């Protein structure tokens, strides 16, 4: 029977491995080898790892349930976005939500909000100009507008309509960045950024 500590360590190992940590992957391989050699503790550990993986299958597709962590590819895309900005690194902006889910969208938004450029209407149009297909551009603008909506319900809505979610979520990154910049302004309406936060502050 695996202890609570063992279960925590196993879950962490799987998470690290899925995030691209090669040391974690090597450890899992080593545990499996030892289990096959008949080492009792390794057999318990590997059985635990197998059960955890089966109970929580890896979903590399678009992840927007707010519970996922950034993967290596997501960090690379964020790095490109930081280095080149949203116009030149449009591809990165599209990749981030698919690899980092809601965590990625928030990180990209914060990065853009703290970047050198104010997120103006003009900048949003310039970013959109890099999107070839009209329908994708429309979805991007939709994402900018509905950036405050819950990612999961938005993903459900989009899949129900058969729309491509990547561009909507890229738009959400930009829209959220714009909201963050706006809420920082003196006399900003905080409820325009977050209804609940605004209500708590008397708006």
């Amino acid at each position, binding site marked *: 029977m695996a202890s609570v500590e063992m279960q925590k360590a196993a879950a962490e190992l799987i998470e690290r491995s899925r995030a691209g940590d090669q040391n974690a992957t090597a450890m899992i391989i080593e545990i499996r080898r030892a289990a096959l050699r008949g080492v009792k503790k390794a057999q318990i550990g590997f059985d635990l790892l197998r059960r955890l993986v089966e109970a929580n299958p890896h979903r590399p597709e678009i992840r927007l349930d707010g519970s996922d962590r950034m993967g290596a590819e997501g960090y690379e895309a964020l790095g490109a976005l*930081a280095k080149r900005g949203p116009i030149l690194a449009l591809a990165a902006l599209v990749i981030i939500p698919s690899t980092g889910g809601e965590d990625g969208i928030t990180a990209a938004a914060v990065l853009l909000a703290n970047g050198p450029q104010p997120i103006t209407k003009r900048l949003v149009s310039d970013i959109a100009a890099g999107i070839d297909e009209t329908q994708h551009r429309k979805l991007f603008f939709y994402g900018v507008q509905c950036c405050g909506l819950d990612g999961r319900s938005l993903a459900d809505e989009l899949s129900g309509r058969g729309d491509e979610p990547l561009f909507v979520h890229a738009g959400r990154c930009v829209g959220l960045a714009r909201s*963050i910049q706006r809420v920082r302004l003196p006399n900003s309406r905080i409820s325009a950024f977050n209804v*609940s*936060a605004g209500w*708590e*502050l008397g708006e």
Partner: protein
Amino acid sequence: MLLPVAVILLGSGTWYAVSKRTKNAGMTAERKVIFDQLINQPQDPDLLREMADVFDKHGLKEQGALLRKRANLRELPPETKETHKQIFREAMASKDPAYVLGIAVAFDKQGATGNAAALRKYAAGLKTSAKAA
């Protein structure tokens, strides 16, 4: 505004019916739905206080206390509210996740869970984006 209140009232009715069987059963699924609705959406402070009494009665003192704190938030003096707004704006402009999380904790202690959650999310974004830079 009417819809959340209706949901809460309906939920409260269900709760009373269920509570005869589950008295002091702690945070049941029904109670959690009602509680989440109360803390995640703008509500009338009087309703929050009434519901705080109900939660207290069922042994959920911590939840009751949080609901009372939220009701009190709305009755703070205007200058205090303005100071809190300024603190929130400054935290949202900070690039130091530790500072932002500190402010989030302070908001949480006052029952301002929406402000705290927004700041935590921002701090998480700061941490993740710093790793990539």
